[in-house]
């Protein structure tokens, strides 16, 4: 059994950590939070130069072709550093959708642009409150023309193109949905940035008025492609969550060692020690589930749907748990704008929602476990 990342992959992790420590300190995150930029363009460029944007994109399409385990390793570091760039929407959602379902021409057009940092992509799925479901998609496509509104669209205000889930029929089945690729500079597209709980990452509303679009993948197979994209993104975002959880735990631990109250380190009080030990427990469980997700993702295993849901649930719980109790360990300091605790708290809650809520994934996990049991 070799249930671990290879030495090369670990080296890549170290390299990514060094790079992000230098290029993405909390100060950089705050530039975006304070509204001085929509995202960190310099960091984005740097990520492209390091080859991180195209790490899972085949060489034929301008990437390095390394693979998804490498991408997982980088995702963890991105989460740890709270990188304020449209990485997840571009790399986990748009690029994965293109690689799964794009035509050769579509891949040729967009994948090299993603890898080089020239294009930001996203997935336009949600239309207001609610979880991923074919029934919730009202935006229509007829004869390659889209009409409707998507919200929230991650990084929608800065994206160059979007994969849009659209209704192409009304039979009440999954096959009603098809995916379209839209150049967001097209006429009829209007994007409006929306305030959200984690301002280090953008959210937008995009309206489509008679927008010309091309199919991505076969007509009427949009939902099944989408499900696979979401599973893949779930694993990758889970790595971001684990990275964030670990960092929040470290911050709490460091503060507990540093802060003195009642003449002793607060980390010597069992209330604080046990709080931190419990954070370690959830972070460890999440990391192990994520490794399994990484294996399933990188080998395209039939276990991926179940592994992805487990990784997502576990990592969501761990990051939320660690981020909120990191504030608690910090006392009043934790509730200041100046300390970074709230950045992790915000991000933990934003990541928990982005691909659909915890309840949605809980439901999905049980469905998938049952299917496997029934098959066995």
């Amino acid at each position, binding site marked *: *059994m*070799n249930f671990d990342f290879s030495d090369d992959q670990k080296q890549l992790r170290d390299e990514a950590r060094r790079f992000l420590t230098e290029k993405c300190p909390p100060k950089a995150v705050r530039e975006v939070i304070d509204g001085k930029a929509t995202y960190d363009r310099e960091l984005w460029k740097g990520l492209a130069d390091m080859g991180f944007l195209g790490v899972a994109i085949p060489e034929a399409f301008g990437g390095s072709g390394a693979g998804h385990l490498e991408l997982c390793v980088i995702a963890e570091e991105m989460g740890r550093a709270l990188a304020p760039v449209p990485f997840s929407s571009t790399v986990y959602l748009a690029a994965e959708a293109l690689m799964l379902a794009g035509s050769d021409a579509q891949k040729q057009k967009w994948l090299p642009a993603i890898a080089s940092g020239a294009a930001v992509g996203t997935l336009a799925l949600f239309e207001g409150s609610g979880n991923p479901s074919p029934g919730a998609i009202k935006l229509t496509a007829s004869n390659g023309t889209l009409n409707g509104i998507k919200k929230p669209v991650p990084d929608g205000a800065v994206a160059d193109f979007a994969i849009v889930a659209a209704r192409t029929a009304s039979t009440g089945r999954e096959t009603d949905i098809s995916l379209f690729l839209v150049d967001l500079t097209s006429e009829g597209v209007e994007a409006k940035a929306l305030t959200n709980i984690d301002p280090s990452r953008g959210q937008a509303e995009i309206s489509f008025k008679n927008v010309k679009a091309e199919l991505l993948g076969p007509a009427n197979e949009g939902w099944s492609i989408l499900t696979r994209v979401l599973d893949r993104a779930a694993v990758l975002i889970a790595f971001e969550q684990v990275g964030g959880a670990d960092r929040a735990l470290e911050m709490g631990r460091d503060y507990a060692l540093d802060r003195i109250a009642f003449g002793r380190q607060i980390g010597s009080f069992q209330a604080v020690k046990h709080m931190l030990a419990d954070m370690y427990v959830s972070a460890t*469980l999440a990391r*192990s589930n994520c490794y399994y997700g990484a294996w399933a993702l990188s080998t395209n295993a039939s276990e991926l749907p179940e592994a992805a849901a*487990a990784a997502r*649930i576990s990592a969501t719980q761990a990051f939320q748990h660690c981020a909120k109790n990191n504030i608690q360990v910090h006392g009043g300091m934790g509730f200041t704008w100046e300390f970074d605790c709230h950045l992790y708290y915000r991000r933990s809650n934003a990541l928990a929602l982005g691909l659909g809520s915890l309840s949605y994934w809980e439901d999905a996990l*049980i469905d998938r476990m*049952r299917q496997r049991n029934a098959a066995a």
Partner: protein
Amino acid sequence: MNFDDTPQEAAFRAEARAWIDANAPKELEAELSKPSAKRASENRDGMIDVAKAWQKKKADAGWACLHWPKDYGGRGSTPIERVIWQQEEGVYDKLSRPFAIGQGMCGPTVMAYADEEQKRKYLPPLASGETIWCQLFSEPAGGSDVAGLRTRAEKDGDDWIVNGQKIWTSGAHYSDFGILITRTDANVPKHKGLTMFFLDMKSPGVEVKPIKQANGMQEFNEVFFTNVRIPDSQRLGAVGDGWNVSLTTLMNERMSIGARLSTGFPELFEFCSNLMLEDGLAIDDRSVRSKLASWAVKNSGLKYTSYRSISALSKGDRPGPENSIGKLVSGSMLQDIAMFAADLQGASGALTDGDADTAGQFQAMILQSPSMRIAGGTDEILRNIIAERVLGLPGDIRVDKDVPFNKIPTKGR
């Protein structure tokens, strides 16, 4: 990243599988597969004899305590081979329970501290299950605080004379030997006046009284010592060095990687997959699903955490600290799951004999689970260990550290 065996591992696995296939007591497979059939240690229906027979058969073929040196009854296997063996042994592993303390804790301690002649004499029959050993550490005055123990050992010629009482000693009632920690000097700080021995449980003056547990079973005991003589040659480690010796034992207790701690989840999942509620299967109910999902990811988290440790072993590395979470997570999970399963059964959840399909397994789990959160280190002690050894937080402020033992307060309010 993969789950494949190396060629050597695969060869070892094939050999183990073939041998088990040819030799395991298949007639017990069905019974052992039931979660309720776990308690060979209670010696119901002569389970001990069955366990001993299987252990002996393994020993004769070189499959007992396989990570031990050959001279002491093992086969000199690598840690990863040991894990592979456990995986292959599967349900028959449940028959090893009566030997777990002896082989997991007493054996390694004897191996580290006894002299060569003793090791050759005592370890092979321990490996083969011909003798059973117990661990005489906890006392009424100290369980978490083992070093608070009061059983006295006084030197008399070449012997030591032991007086006092141990408690919670699992399996003492069917054990042949035990390792025993005693206080040999009460005038020095508590951790400094301790000395470790091993002894024959049939020595005159040893009296074992079973304790009836909260769940009605009897697996642990009180053990009283009245002028019990132990030869000095049976001392393990130096006089006054008992605390360090005991750490060897306790470390081995917590280290057993791959030891599958039961969480109750597979049982619950199966139960919910079949249970009809008023408006459908339990597993189709959203509120049931949400709970199941949270436990599912803990269960898989533990499983893959142990895979990570196994992978480290497979590479010849030392596993990281991640394995320390196992008992802490599974203990309270077992309890929560058992309570939820009983809840799903409604008012009949209170019945312990139930109908055939679940046969009271969750009720037994409810009653058994509190001990999981205590035995071998309480939840609180485990959190301390994670906080201190893994996260590097300071230890508790101690009032008992540099004080002579006989000056330490002993009673609550």
